């Protein structure tokens, strides 16, 4: 059973975490002003947590089994009727 949508979901989530880390890194490491940097970082993190909560709370309710498919169920014909090797 392969659940491509679930894999895609985790890849998107991974990109989001990576992007968020890069943003926080820039806000903290290249800071010019401590106050501005702290406020912006906190604002960004709060926003991230809000959208992440909304995302995860909805993802939990999704019936991922319905969205999966079995590769074994795909009919594959191996009969080479018009093969020139016959």
């Amino acid at each position, binding site marked *: 059973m392969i659940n491509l949508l679930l894999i895609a979901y985790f890849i998107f989530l991974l990109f989001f975490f990576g992007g*968020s880390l890069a943003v926080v890194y820039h806000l903290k490491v290249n800071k*010019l002003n401590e106050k501005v940097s702290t406020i912006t970082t906190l604002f960004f993190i709060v926003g991230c947590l809000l959208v992440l909560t909304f995302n995860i709370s*909805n993802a939990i309710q999704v019936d991922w089994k319905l969205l999966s498919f079995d590769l074994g169920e795909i009919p594959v014909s191996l009969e080479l009727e018009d093969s020139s090797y016959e």
Partner: protein
Amino acid sequence: MNKPKGNYQHRFLDYHFKGKRDGEEIILILRRHWLILVAKLIPFGFFSIGLIAIFFLAPILTEFLPIVIDNNVFNVVMSFFFMGFWLSLFVMWIDFYYDVWIVTDQRIISIEQLGLFRREISELEHGKIQDVTTEIHGIVPTLLKFGQVYIQTAGEKARFTFKQVENPVMIRSVVMALQKNAIKQQKREEGAIMRGKV
């Protein structure tokens, strides 16, 4: 060293940057005009309005569609759009906020942030400044007093440009005053060497 007079120095006491020398004082921190950020944010504003409209109108619209869309799947997809929107907003902010020109009492530092993973830093000692030119081009920049400041140098980087900065005329006068001070200082030092004091 004599510094140009002004009431701006106290504004930057809380500001620090990597490689700041001991006793170095920040005189100006320059960024692009706020209108440039607003102009970049306008498409984002439309996009966010579109996202919110889709989010709230979707239950009504799906009634007219021939296919059934699971509400939770729809919400997950929408939340990814919101996540992307939030990230892009801050990437834009970083691009604006960290694209900065710092004028100190010793040198000019140009920091150009190009996206998240490209950053160019160059610096110029005041003594190497040859000429400063300002350019205000267009109706909106004339009304809001923003434009370019070109600093011709004798250094490695031939020309420094402060792009779309507020009040370029004031900046030019500050930079010119700093350059004059630096040249006076250089001459004083040279004179001291000639007299054998150093």
